[in-house]
């Protein structure tokens, strides 16, 4: 438990007894599966139109689509995703940075990394635990 009042548990006694949850909420997921199954089996999907592999094959097509180059046979069935690719790349970067930020903590005035001493110029390696 932290001493920081913001992160402490708000209040002591509570009407809800969490320890006694059991599997009852899990039944909700089974219910959802049932509803989904009924819906799926009752649905009409229309006519299939199989993928044409084309000159370079599907994997090539995906690569071309990611970088907006020469879609070839897939030109009619997909589009360029270069912008989305960059955005996801940046998002991943941010996520990694965010994870590092969250994992770091200050201990005795020095920054301790969760990932080990490599990134903290060798000081007090491994204290954060990874």
């Amino acid at each position: 438990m932290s001493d920081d009042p913001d992160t402490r548990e708000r209040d002591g006694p509570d009407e809800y007894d969490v320890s006694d949850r059991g599997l009852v909420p899990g039944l909700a997921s089974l219910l959802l599966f049932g509803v989904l199954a009924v819906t799926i089996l009752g649905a009409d999907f229309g006519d299939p139109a199989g993928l044409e592999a084309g000159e370079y094959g599907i994997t090539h097509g995906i690569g071309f689509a990611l970088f907006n180059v020469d879609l070839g046979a897939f030109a009619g069935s997909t589009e360029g995703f270069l912008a989305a690719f960059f955005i996801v790349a940046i998002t991943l970067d941010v996520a990694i940075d965010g994870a590092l930020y969250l994992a770091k903590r200050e201990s005795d005035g020095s920054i301790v990394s969760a990932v080990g001493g490599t990134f903290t110029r060798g000081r007090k390696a491994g204290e954060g635990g990874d």
Partner: protein
Amino acid sequence: MVAPEYYLLLAAAVFCIGLFGVLTRREALYFLMSVELMLNAANINFVAFSAYYGDLTGQVFSLFVIALAAAEVAIGIGIILVLYRNFGVTDVTVPRGMRW
């Protein structure tokens, strides 16, 4: 060609297994794994429909979903670390500030 219903039922089953994990487990790491299952259920649907309707976009999208899942896990692990640091446990039912 396999009928799409089978893919969809598979996806729904995987999704609901993931959901079951979220609803019944208290351990935060199980949470992350369950969420992973749910995301991949969505991927199954993407790929299934991509093949069924002959549209490559679904397959490209599933790649993005995988990438975003990685990002989510990175943040999720960070959050779990903070959780552990603040509460001493990784039980998601312990932090209860998220209410009125």
